[in-house]
């Protein structure tokens, strides 16, 4: 292989590595290019499997079932030794080589080998595999061939490492999703029972029972249910799985009124100023509840006790715009970009107000899942206080009514 051919080969291999999305396709394409460029009989690439044993992942040329079935411990045989030491191995006469186990010579196509060249796939100090080519002729491979194979091995090591990282992340994400789904499931069963049995008590003994206490149990159970849904949404968002919406035609104003009242409780009834247009939208009612609850809870948390909390709902062309305004200290311009990040709680109230800082993050996730947006501003009337507006599309974007033509 002359210098120009070598450069062309390496460029082609780099292109294969960059273009391929599947590890095996990529490794096979590269091995086949090598086979075309260097004359060898058989070639293979071995990667450690889940047990840490080396197994052939891709083979080209002459190689049989017996060789493919071999599993090597690191340090075992030539390939295992290259894998554990990182040092390349090249010989022109395997039979005269003391490092070869005599038993290994009789395995399948190994019998036909005379020349053997093996290099390690190393990426940032980690050895991730070994690449081998062989020939039935003596002295088949030159020092240049070894150098070329080592360069190719460096490229492949990067590809293999990235693929391993992606594979591990995917597995970890699935495991996390399963875990959170199981936890949510387990929390929802007792919540269902507490809620249902309390409702039965209210229905059966409504007149004589302490309806205030039973009502409080219901309200707080609903609050817990929303938190469970929020935590699951945050977890799924963090793991990159996204939020699955269950959209259905929903009276948005009714949910806004119901949840605002429930969150503030009867003792704060007169603080609530509702100005709601009757709007029906195809949204996820559970997520809408979260959004309303978190925004109203947030306003109540940061505004001084007794001050009004204004909740307004208007409809534009295809959006519901929900604005929640308070008479608190407002949100400084500098903080407006980051209050929707998770765990963010802004000074100076940070120490006085308890919470995880997940509320507005959950609002952002839920609204974004609907294709909407959240905007922070000053109050329209210029007095002190924050106003947070949610713009919620009334229909899923892809199923929106076709425009007139």
């Amino acid at each position, binding site marked *: 292989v002359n210098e120009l051919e070598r450069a062309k080969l390496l460029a082609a291999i780099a292109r294969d590595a960059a273009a391929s999305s599947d590890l095996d396709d990529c490794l096979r394409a590269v091995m086949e290019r090598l086979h075309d460029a260097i004359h060898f009989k058989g070639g293979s690439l071995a990667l450690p499997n889940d047990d840490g044993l080396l197994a052939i992942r891709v083979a080209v040329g002459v190689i049989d079932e017996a060789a493919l079935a071999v599993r090597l411990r690191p340090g075992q045989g030539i390939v295992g030794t290259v894998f554990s030491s990182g040092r390349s191995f090249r010989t022109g006469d395997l039979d005269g080589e003391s490092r070869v186990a005599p038993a290994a010579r009789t395995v399948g196509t190994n019998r036909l080998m005379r020349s053997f060249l093996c290099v390690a796939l190393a990426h940032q100090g980690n050895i991730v595999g070994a690449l081998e080519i062989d020939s039935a002729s003596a002295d088949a491979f030159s020092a240049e061939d070894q150098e070329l194979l080592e360069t190719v091995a460096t490229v492949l090591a990067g590809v293999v490492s990235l693929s391993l990282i992606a594979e591990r992340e995917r597995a970890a994400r699935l495991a996390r999703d399963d875990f959170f*789904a199981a936890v*949510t*499931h387990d929390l*929802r*069963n*007792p*919540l*269902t*029972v507490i*809620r*249902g*049995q309390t*409702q*039965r008590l209210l*229905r*059966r003994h409504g007149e004589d029972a302490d309806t205030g206490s039973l009502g409080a149990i219901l309200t707080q*159970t609903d609050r817990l*249910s929303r938190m469970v849904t929020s935590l*699951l949404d945050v977890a799924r968002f963090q793991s990159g799985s996204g939020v*699955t919406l*269950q959209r259905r035609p929903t009276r948005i104003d009714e949910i806004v009124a119901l949840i605002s009242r429930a969150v503030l409780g009867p003792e704060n009834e007169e603080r609530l100023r509702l100005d709601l247009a009757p709007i029906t939208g195809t949204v996820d009612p*559970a997520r809408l509840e979260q959004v309303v609850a978190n925004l109203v809870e947030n306003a109540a948390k940061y505004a001084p006790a007794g001050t009004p909390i204004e909740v307004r709902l208007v409809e534009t062309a295809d959006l519901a715009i929900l604005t929640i305004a308070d008479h608190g200290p407002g949100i400084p311009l500098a903080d407006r970009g980051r209050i929707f990040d998770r765990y963010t709680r802004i000074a100076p109230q940070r120490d006085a107000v308890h919470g995880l800082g997940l509320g507005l993050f959950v609002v952002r996730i839920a609204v974004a899942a609907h294709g909407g947006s959240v905007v922070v501003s000053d109050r329209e009337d210029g007095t002190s206080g924050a106003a947070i507006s949610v713009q919620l599309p009334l229909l899923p974007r892809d199923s929106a009514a076709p425009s007139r033509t």
Partner: protein
Amino acid sequence: VPGRYGHALRRTILVVDDDDSIRDLLEAFLGDEGYSVVSATDGAQALELVTDKLVPDLMLLDIGMPVVNGPEFVARYRRICEPPHAPIVVITARGDGERIAKEIDAEAFVTKPFELEDLAAVVKRSARPQR
């Protein structure tokens, strides 16, 4: 008023859920509503009931259960028992209840935690009419 038709005409609901407290709640509430309720802790027990004379007018079915899960139960029930088959309402704490309900061709689905009134409405709408 629920329950006014007397015992003989009561409609029968089969509740299949592995959570004792959920079964207790559904038995109590649907009993309040005037239904006759039979319950099973998993799909295998439910199969025993429906192959041994029980002809429910509706089934409330959990999805994740040991031994025989919800979808497996439905498949076997429809294979073993002669039609007409009882309508099925999926009742689940999972987020994908709607998809599963479609897959097993259920009448409706209810997500835990549910509002008792909502459950009552779904049951009333989905149960087989008075025989």
